[in-house]
């Protein structure tokens, strides 16, 4: 069953075309990695799925309904969780924010909401930090709290924008292990730069640079080789494969557009 269906989607800010003719289907319990160069349109696509932007052309359906504001079945973890760390707010209050906008009790938070928030914290292994100030946590811990906040609304889809951009390697691994665990019941969509790490966990990959090329990588152990057990995949090989049309492992039944993006790809490699 597909949870997100994007058809012939185009989007432009003013005259600059950001996304062109995007077709993408995300199935239930997929772990989709969205990768691509800066300015390639990754975050824009997320905002379109979340209903924060309206498509210029084409359609987006989330769980069978047109994408709209206040999507109750999507959990969203924004980029840059390291801003506002001086803000005096407890971990539990950040998580409770996941309930904001729902039917509010007259004062403060309901008992059921607090129980739910504690449950979400337990899910990400942060329950003992519930009374800590958010600024006192490490980047990785803070990211877990943001994931807990997104889980608070019992989402069917969890969308994360660069979840590990400011976390050390060990923290990154832990976040992805957590996502892998959550993936047993929730569809996960991650925008990421850390391609070598993300592709170890993702089952599908979409490369976006204005256009989109899609790959089923659930059987990646056969597609890629690591030089040693447990080592990251070689990024150069990955990029060559993901950016090229000639990839013979692509699942053509689910990928609607497979566009060659060679020039931009080469540029991206240069800047890395």
């Amino acid at each position, binding site marked *: 069953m597909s949870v997100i269906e994007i058809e012939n989607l185009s989007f432009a800010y003013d005259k600059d075309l950001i996304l062109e003719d995007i077709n993408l289907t995300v199935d239930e319990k997929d772990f989709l990695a969205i990768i691509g160069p800066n300015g390639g349109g990754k975050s824009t696509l997320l905002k379109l799925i979340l209903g*924060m932007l309206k498509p210029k052309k084409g359609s987006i359906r989330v769980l069978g309904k047109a994408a709209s504001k206040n999507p109750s079945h999507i959990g969203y973890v*924004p980029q840059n969780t390291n801003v506002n760390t001086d803000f005096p*707010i*407890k971990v539990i209050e*950040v998580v409770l924010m996941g*309930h*904001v*906008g*729902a039917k509010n009790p*007259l004062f403060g938070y309901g008992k059921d909401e607090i129980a739910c928030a504690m449950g979400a914290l337990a899910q990400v292994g942060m329950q003992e930090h519930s009374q800590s100030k958010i600024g006192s946590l490490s980047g990785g811990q803070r990211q877990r709290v943001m994931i807990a906040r997104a889980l608070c609304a019992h989402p069917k889809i969890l969308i994360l924008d660069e979840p590990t951009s400011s976390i050390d390697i060990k923290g990154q691994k832990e976040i992805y292990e957590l996502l892998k665990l959550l993936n047993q019941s929730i569809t996960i969509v991650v925008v990421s730069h850390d391609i070598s790490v993300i592709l170890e966990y993702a089952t599908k990959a979409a490369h976006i640079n204005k256009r989109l090329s899609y790959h089923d990588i659930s059987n990646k152990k056969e597609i890629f080789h690591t030089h040693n057990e447990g080592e990251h995949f070689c990024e150069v090989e990955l990029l060559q494969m993901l950016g090229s049309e000639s990839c013979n492992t692509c699942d053509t039944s689910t990928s609607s557009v497979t566009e060659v993006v060679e020039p931009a790809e080469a540029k991206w490699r240069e800047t890395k």
Partner: protein
Amino acid sequence: MIEALSFEFIQHALIAGILVSFAAGIIGSLIVVNRMVFLAGGIAHASYGGIGLAVFFGFPIFLGASLFAVGAALLISSLTLRKRHRIDTFIGLIWAVGMAIGVIFIDLTPGYNVDMMSYLFGSILAVSTEDLYFMGTLLAVILFVMTFWYRDILAVSYDSEYAALRGVHVRFFYTLILILAALTVVVSIKVVGLILVIAMLTIPVYIAEKLSHSLFGMMFLSGLIATLFTLVGLWFSYTYNLTSGASIILISAASLGAFLLFYKGK
């Protein structure tokens, strides 16, 4: 010192000091966490235009200043939406134009000779009973708003993008905070004057932020600290016959310096 408490104007000054300190503590916290300090400064100075108009047309000063400050707040709120990248320029404009309007209208007022310095630097020893009602009502409104919309205001302040995604009307709460800030600035004018208002709205808040684990705690603590500074400042000004507003601010600043030294040393 004790006999001073029997004077009505001293009693009024103390009550006003406490009411305004709590209003400033709560609203100051919101201003600081939402990074609106410059914005509040603009509103404070623009409200001088309202004072000038009130003097010229002969209606109550508080009313004139309130209307003008709220107008400035609404203007800034709508500009923030449309001209986000130049918002600091517009705040600077509103800041200066408001003051200029005030100065011109006071020039135009025939035979007017009341000391305008009292609006710039405060006149807590000249608080009337009506002023106290105004301050009390404002504090009640602030407490009401904070009680009923605490979670929404917290969400908007901490992460407005996420709040918007969850269906919170971010623009409504942003405007609400600005209007309450405008009114708080107006009542603070009585205590420390419009030039010194910013210090009153930020110094206690800065100290409280370091010591608090929640926005609610920060607001309450800011109110307590502001009250302490105001009362000590008043005593200082009474004892040494100095301007009360400036005394309160300097006591606050000295305390902040001491706090930072102590806090760093820990």
